[in-house]
């Protein structure tokens, strides 16, 4: 028997050695793969956490900015309007401009 014939006969006879998985193995593999490829990666996970935090901080910063600007405006406004005329010994002085 030549080497080729030998291998060809062994191949035929070895056919039952092919692995037959249990009926649920393939379903388990599919489910496992699906679960793992849908699971978010670390950068995605971080992005998911940081996005709302960033948004909240941005809102706080905006509110603070608006608040400071309003206070500034009010302060400027009250100073501007609050010039006081003082008359002393016939001369008049203006304070607060």
């Amino acid at each position: 028997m030549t080497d080729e014939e030998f291998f060809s006969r062994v191949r035929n006879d070895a056919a039952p050695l092919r692995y037959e998985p249990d009926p649920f193995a393939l379903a388990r593999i599919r489910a496992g793969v699906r679960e793992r490829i849908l699971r978010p990666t670390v950068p995605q996970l971080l992005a998911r956490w940081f996005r709302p935090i960033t948004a909240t901080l941005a809102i706080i910063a905006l509110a603070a900015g608006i608040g400071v600007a309003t206070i500034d405006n009010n302060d400027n406004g009250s100073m501007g309007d609050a010039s006081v005329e003082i008359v002393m010994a016939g001369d008049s002085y203006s304070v607060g401009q």
Partner: protein
Amino acid sequence: MGSERELVERAQAGDTGAFDVLVSFYAKRVLSIAWGIVRSASDAEELAQEAFVKAYQSIGRFRLDEPFGPWIFRITTNLALDVLKHRKRVKHEEITEREPAPRRDRADLPAITNEIARRIGGAIDELPEMQRVVAQLHLIEEFEHREIAAMTGLSEGTVRSHLSLARGKLREKLADLYGDGDD
């Protein structure tokens, strides 16, 4: 296969459903290759899963003009060979007052009703590691030399040489079944 190319294209665009179809096409073969190398049902299952996840993660780099099968088989074989290497390292550390032969748990073997097949399986199991892997891929999984070379990263010449050595040993061990092997 046109539809396979389409599925790969869709998977590259992030369609996990299309990738799931590819998994269902190849899972059985991938599992069989993995089991043939690592000889443990649970390791093979884990390995098959890992191979598909790895494939999905790098599917963007997959070339559409190539078939998907050899690619996933190559990933599987590489992972399985890594498992063997890892086992060898662990075995070195543990050390073995038990059986000297690296036989896996026989409970994992499928029910083999055919006595000849059982003898062949036993003889393949007793081959040195790479001869066993190559013989398993050639005789049981029916891959050609070129395919085995691509899957294992060995040269075709090395694959032929492993097979030739394996053939010699198998002929000797199975001489009562296939003649005395003197030609």
